[in-house]
C-alpha cells in the first residue's frame, strides 16, 4: 500500500527526513510518533505527494513518486483521505457542504452525495450538526467534521496529522475511537501523534521518528 524506499527530504540543514525505508500494509492502523520537528508531517505529505523526496522513491496505492506526472497526482489523492490538526474546514459552508466537497470533486450525483454524507455524519456522530457552520462547533466536533470529510469518499488510506493535537482527552479518545471503527471496515490509517498517553494502551504498530530518522517501526 505505502512503501518508502530509502527516501530523504529536507527543508533546511536542520529539518527533514533521512534514509527512510518503510512499508505499510493494506488495512493496517499505525501510529507515527515522535517529537515536534521529527518529520512526521513531512512523511505524511510525501504520501499524498505534496512534497517529493530528494532521494529515493515512494510507492503509494500503485503510484510511484518518480513516475507519476504532476497532472496525475490528483488521481492518487482521490484515494486518500487527509485529516489535519487545524481541521481546514471552509468557514462559510455548513457541515454538510464541507463533507460533501470531496464527492463533488469525484463527480458523484446529488442523490448519492446525500446518502454518503448522511452515512459519514452518522459514523462521526454529527447528524444533528449538518446545518451548522464550523465556527458554531467545538474543536472536537470540528475534528469529527474533518474525519467525516476524509471518509465520505471511501478512501483506501486515511492520513491523520495530529488529529487530536488541539483536543481535550475526552474528545481525543472519541476521535481515536471513530478512526478505529473506520479501520475495522478495512481502511488503512496512518496517524501522526505525539500524544503517547493516548496510544499507550493500543495494540497497533508504532513507527517512531527522531530528528528525521526512523528509530523503530
Amino acid at each position, binding site marked *: 500500500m505505502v512503501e518508502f524506499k530509502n527516501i530523504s527530504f529536507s527543508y533546511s540543514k536542520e529539518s527533514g527526513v533521512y534514509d527512510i525505508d518503510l512499508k505499510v500494509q493494506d488495512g493496517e492502523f499505525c501510529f507515527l510518533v515522535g517529537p515536534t520537528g521529527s518529520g512526521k508531517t513531512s512523511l505524511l505529505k510525501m504520501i499524498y505527494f505534496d512534497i517529493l523526496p530528494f532521494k529515493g522513491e515512494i510507492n503509494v496505492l500503485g503510484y510511484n513518486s518518480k513516475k507519476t506526472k504532476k497532472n496525475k497526482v490528483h488521481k492518487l489523492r*482521490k484515494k486518500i483521505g487527509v485529516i489535519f490538526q487545524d481541521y481546514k474546514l*471552509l468557514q462559510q459552508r455548513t457541515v454538510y457542504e464541507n463533507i460533501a*466537497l*470531496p464527492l463533488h*470533486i469525484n463527480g458523484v450525483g446529488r442523490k448519492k452525495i446525500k446518502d454518503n454524507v448522511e452515512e459519514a455524519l452518522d459514523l462521526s456522530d454529527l447528524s444533528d450538526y449538518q446545518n451548522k457552520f464550523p465556527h458554531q462547533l467545538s474543536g472536537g466536533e470540528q475534528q469529527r467534521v474533518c474525519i467525516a*470529510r476524509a471518509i465520505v469518499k471511501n478512501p483506501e488510506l486515511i492520513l491523520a496529522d495530529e488529529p487530536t493535537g488541539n483536543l481535550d482527552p475526552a474528545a481525543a479518545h472519541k476521535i481515536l475511537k471513530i478512526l478505529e471503527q473506520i479501520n475495522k471496515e478495512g481502511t488503512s490509517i496512518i496517524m501522526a501523534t505525539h500524544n503517547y498517553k493516548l496510544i499507550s494502551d493500543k495494540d497497533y504498530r508504532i513507527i517512531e521518528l527522531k530528528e528525521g530518522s526512523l528509530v523503530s517501526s
Partner: protein
Amino acid sequence: MIDQFAFLISEGFKSFYRNKLASFLCVITIFINFSILGSLFVVGYNTNSLVDFFRSKYTFEIFLVDDIEEKTYIDFVNQLNSNKIIANTELIDKQKSAIIFKKEFGEDVVEMLGYNPLPISVKVFINEEDFDFSKVDLLIKSLSNIDFVDEVEYRGRYIDEVEDRINLAIFLFLVFVVAIIFLSYQIISNTVNLSMTNRKDFIDILKYNGASRIFIKIPFYIESIIYSVIGSSLSFFFVKYFFITFNSYFDLNIKMDDYLWLWIIGFSIFIGLYSSNQSMKRNLNE
C-alpha cells in the same frame, strides 16, 4: 457529470458574490474600458465612410475670363471630359451662377446691378480611383496657364492632409486599443488573483481531495466570464444608445456593425479568460 458542472457554475457565482467590492470595481472597469473600445470600434467602422466623404470633395473649379466665347468654353469642357483623371465636369454658365448666388445669398445680382458680373466656371470632379495628387496638381498648373482661365480654385490640397491625419488618428486609436486591452487584462488578472488569495483554503481543500487543476480553475474562469459579460453588456448598451443619441442630435449617419455586441462581449470574454488563466498559472505554480 451534470451535478458536477452545476457545482462548478455555482462556485463561480459564489466567488463573484463573495468578493463584492472587487467584483464591482472589476465590472465597472470593464464597462469603462469596453465603452471606450466599443466607441473606437464604431469610429473605426465609420472611418472608410469618412474617407469617402472627403474623397467626394475631390473637385476643383475653373473660373473663366469674362469675355470668353461660347464655342471656346464648350470645346474646353469637352477637352476636360476626355482627360482620364477627370470623372466628369459641370458647366456653370452665367445664368446658373446667378441662380446659385441667389440661393446662397438671397439676392438677385442681375436685378441689383443691372448686369451679371458672375464668371462662367467649370466644376471638375476628379476620378477617385487611382487618385494621384501629383497628376491633379500638374493638371491644375497647366490649366492655370491657359489664357481664358482666370483662376483655378482647388481645395484638394487639404484633403491629402486630412487623410494623413485620419491615418495618424487610426494609428493612435490602435495604440489606445492596445492600452485598453492591457488595462482590462491587468484588472481582471488582479481581481482573479485577489479572489484566489481569498479562497486559498478552498483551493487547498480541493487539491488535497484530489481535484484536478482544471476542476480548481473552472470556478475562477466562470467568475471572470461573469465580470466580462456584465461589464461588456453594459458597455454595449452604452455605446449603442450613445451613438443613436449622437446621430439624432447632430443629424449624422454614423453606422454600427450589426455584430457589435458580439465583438464587444466576445472580445471581453476572451480577455477575461486569458487574463484569469495567466493569474491562475501564477497562483497554482504551473
